[in-house]
């Protein structure tokens, strides 16, 4: 059986015009460069949801600074976009002040502080969880205390990748592995937040309420706390008809 004629070949000039307009839509020239930099870990660097959120949230809260430290350490160690599939990459808007994670001599704390203070508030179009600001230039530093954090980042990164690819079972399995290997991990808030998001995707309001309550109880000042509160409110709205048979 042959395919039907396409609408652009139809008789309605309005439809033809509308369909034809699609061909004008193309990415700006800089998008390709950003993708390549993101893939090579150059300008676009992120370590996943929470650290990016922390960066975007600025330095106002101590929790944000702590999270930014994590981000800075991770960047210093990796020098790559360790978000992998779950990475939340640089905002394309060029107006932000970028901060350079410069060298091995840059301590995580100092880097984090300067980064946090230099980074404006997140845009309303922020993606799923967080967006890291661009980091200009490659990073060569390797801090002695960072290897543990990098080890912890690996399963979390993989969980984000699974989440982004829609494989919630795998994401949960990886989170479970993370929690098992790092029961007191530095990225426990990030792992918990991702877990809540997984159940949000599964529309399991009861679990979302449990997890967000746990998150807010443990980390009320965390940069992801507002998001968790919003998720809890949304889940509370749907809990009655979805989760409690």
């Amino acid at each position, binding site marked *: 059986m042959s*395919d*039907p004629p*396409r*609408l*652009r070949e139809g008789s*309605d000039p*309005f*439809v033809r015009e*509308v*369909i*034809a*307009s*699609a061909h*004008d*839509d*193309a*990415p*700006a020239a800089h*998008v*390709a460069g*950003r*993708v*390549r930099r*993101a*893939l*090579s870990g150059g300008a676009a660097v992120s370590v996943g949801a929470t650290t990016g959120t922390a960066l975007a949230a600025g330095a106002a809260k101590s929790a944000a600074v702590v999270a930014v430290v994590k981000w800075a350490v991770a960047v210093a160690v*990796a*020098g*790559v*976009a360790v978000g*992998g*599939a*779950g*990475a*939340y*990459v640089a*905002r*394309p*808007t060029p107006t932000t002040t970028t901060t350079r994670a410069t060298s091995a001599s840059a301590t995580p704390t100092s880097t984090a502080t300067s980064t946090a203070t230099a980074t404006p508030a997140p845009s309303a*179009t*922020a*993606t*799923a969880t967080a967006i890291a600001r661009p980091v200009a230039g490659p990073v060569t530093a390797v801090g002695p205390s960072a290897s543990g954090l*990098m080890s912890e980042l*690996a*399963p979390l*990164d*993989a969980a984000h*990748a*699974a*989440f*982004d*690819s*829609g*494989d919630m079972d*795998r994401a949960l*399995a990886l989170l479970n*592995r993370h929690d098992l290997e790092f029961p007191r991990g530095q990225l426990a808030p990030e792992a918990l937040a991702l877990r809540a*998001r997984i159940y*949000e995707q599964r529309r399991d309001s009861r679990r979302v309420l449990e997890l967000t309550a746990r998150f807010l109880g443990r980390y009320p000042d965390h940069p992801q706390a507002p998001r968790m509160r919003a998720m809890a409110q949304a889940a509370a709205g749907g809990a009655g008809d979805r989760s409690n048979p």
Partner: protein
Amino acid sequence: MLSVEGVPGPLAPLEGSTGGLREQADDPRLVAMVRDHLDFTWRSLRRLGLPADAADDAVQRVFLVASARLADIDPGRERAFLFNTALRVASSEKRSFARRREVRNRDALERAPDTAPAADEQLDRHRARQVLEELLRQLEIDLRAVFVLYELEELSTAEIAATLEIPPGTVSSRLRRAREQFQAATRRLQARRRRGNGGMR
């Protein structure tokens, strides 16, 4: 829901999940994917409902997924993988953040006749594209995917079936429903425009 079996794979070893990205970026296959399919992927994200700035971000995420899963992508299936991943990313974005925006956009479409030119006027390209985006948003996501691939990317139904990994009959039925919905939305819009212009076409 769309079948996206091509996207997730078996549980990968953790080792190296954060490293190796820089090396992957130089992988000729990945370089070729970016070169050959960046525009397609970005356009797909736009047509699946993301605004341009969000598509700029999301396209990076799609390619990061591809980078992380490069070994799992069968040769020749790159575009299918990217589209399915774009579908996932766009759906995730929309589920998480865009409900209010969707409502707002629907409202905007309803209001469009007040300020829009008459239906028989030549729409400028930018305005036409805005209308297209609004009309596409009227479609359910699985129908929209098929519609986009057929009407805008001009893939055959067989190619769409292979891309989405669904039976050809499902493609045909989704396409039929998508076109019905699209044309119904178009008629509604045109009717409102006629009313908004004193009944003139």
